[in-house]
């Protein structure tokens, strides 16, 4: 073929007009946020669940302040873990049903990036609210007011890791009939390190001790999850869509 000016443009005309992955991810974030804000019930429910579960812990024992303080970190973290698990159903289900997930997969843009954006929105809607109500829950469990910044910081890092780890499980169980229980079985063992270091950081925070060590480890887990999980999520979603 001769190199006429007509042939200088890229071989695929779609390519020149297609958005880059960053722009696409931004659009995706906007779309998902808009959709979620129209149905606030869906993502408020896991939040309520978190509050209810943390309330149930004191009811199951003698609500002495010193005992409650011992129990606060595991109660907060187990409740956060379970509520993030409940919220995972929202991550891909709707988009898989109406086919928009498939459109993302065939869009030609890097799927890990797009799914990372979806997971980020999911964290904004289900992880961040947890962090916001955590002062309430931790005060109910007898944590001193001075401990609140530490509790917030540990939940902030931990919930990022939990959302990312959970996204892998959500991708793998996409469209399965018995998905819910299986999702718990897949995700909970993988979340053990987050639970351990998170609860440890919270324990130190409530005891008003320095919590740098566990925060570093928690941060490392979040960074590791952020760098590797999107690849696994994309692989899982591709497999589930076929």
């Amino acid at each position, binding site marked *: 073929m001769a190199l006429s000016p007509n042939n200088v443009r890229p071989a695929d005309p779609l390519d020149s007009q297609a958005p880059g992955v960053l722009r696409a991810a931004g659009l995706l974030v906007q779309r998902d946020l808009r959709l979620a804000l129209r149905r606030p019930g869906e993502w408020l429910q896991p939040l309520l669940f978190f509050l209810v579960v943390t309330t149930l812990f004191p009811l199951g024992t003698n609500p002495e302040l010193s005992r409650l303080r011992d129990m606060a970190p595991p109660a907060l973290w187990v409740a956060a873990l379970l509520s993030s698990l409940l919220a995972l159903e929202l991550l891909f289900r709707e988009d898989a049903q109406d086919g928009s997930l498939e459109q993302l997969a065939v869009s030609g843009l890097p799927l890990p990036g797009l799914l990372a954006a979806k997971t980020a929105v999911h964290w904004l809607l289900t992880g961040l609210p947890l962090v916001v109500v955590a002062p309430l829950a931790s005060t109910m469990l007898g944590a001193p007011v001075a401990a609140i910044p530490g509790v917030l910081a540990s939940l902030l890092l931990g919930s990022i890791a939990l959302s990312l780890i959970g996204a892998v499980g959500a991708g793998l169980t996409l469209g399965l009939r018995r998905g819910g229980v299986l999702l718990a*079985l897949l995700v909970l063992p993988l979340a053990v390190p987050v639970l351990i270091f998170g609860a440890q950081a919270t324990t130190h925070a409530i005891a008003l001790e320095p919590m740098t060590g566990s925060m570093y480890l928690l941060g490392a887990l979040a960074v590791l999850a952020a760098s590797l999980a999107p690849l696994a999520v994309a692989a899982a979603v591709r497999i589930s869509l076929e």
Partner: protein
Amino acid sequence: MSWVWFHKLGSPPHFYRIAGKLVPWFAWPALLLCLAGLVMGLGMAPADYQQGEGYRIIFVHAPAAWLSLMIYSMMATYAAIGLIWRINVCHALAASCAGVGASFTLVALVTGSLWGRPMWGTYWEWDPRLTSELVLLFLYLGYMGLRGAIDDTSRADRASAVLAIVGVVNVPIIHYSVLWWNSLHQAPSIMQMKKPTMPPSMYVPLLLMLLGFTLYFVAILLVRARGEVLRRERTARWVGESLGAGEAA
């Protein structure tokens, strides 16, 4: 050097035939080694000066614990090979690993908890190593659960392969997090006790059992993988031929 033998191994009929021939070569030495290890370990090794006769459960516990971890990494390796090069036989091998690995994990847990009764005074101590075995068991069960929940074999293969790879990245993280968790929370005095270096009369039988268990695992893996290959290829002609269906038809 020709790589034909390698490619042949990836083809189900050849794998089925070769694996069938290999099984006795692993099974018989496994039986002999385990017998020798048991006789030496239970009969000839001296009692431990601290733990008495109770320590002898180590001859089952340690090999089972070693295998539980080795099988998981092996399963993830097979799964990765199967996922990347799309070798069906590797997926069959990974699928066959899961059940055996979960069983060995269970054996390690049960023997560990039985051992804990005379040593720690309780059946369950939140000892870091036992705890990470427990999480490993959950990982195996999750893998098997995911496999069981997906009807389409090819999709089940690839989805569970992704899970196995994610799991194998997590196993060391889980192990060390559990280790640090307990060492920071409480320092059980019993774990501080340095194990006395073993005399040869104890570690020789342990080594024999370790080797015997490993060979047994290879034998059982081959048997199970043969069954798995047959199940997957049940409609293929070679299956009918090799099972002698010709006479029945």
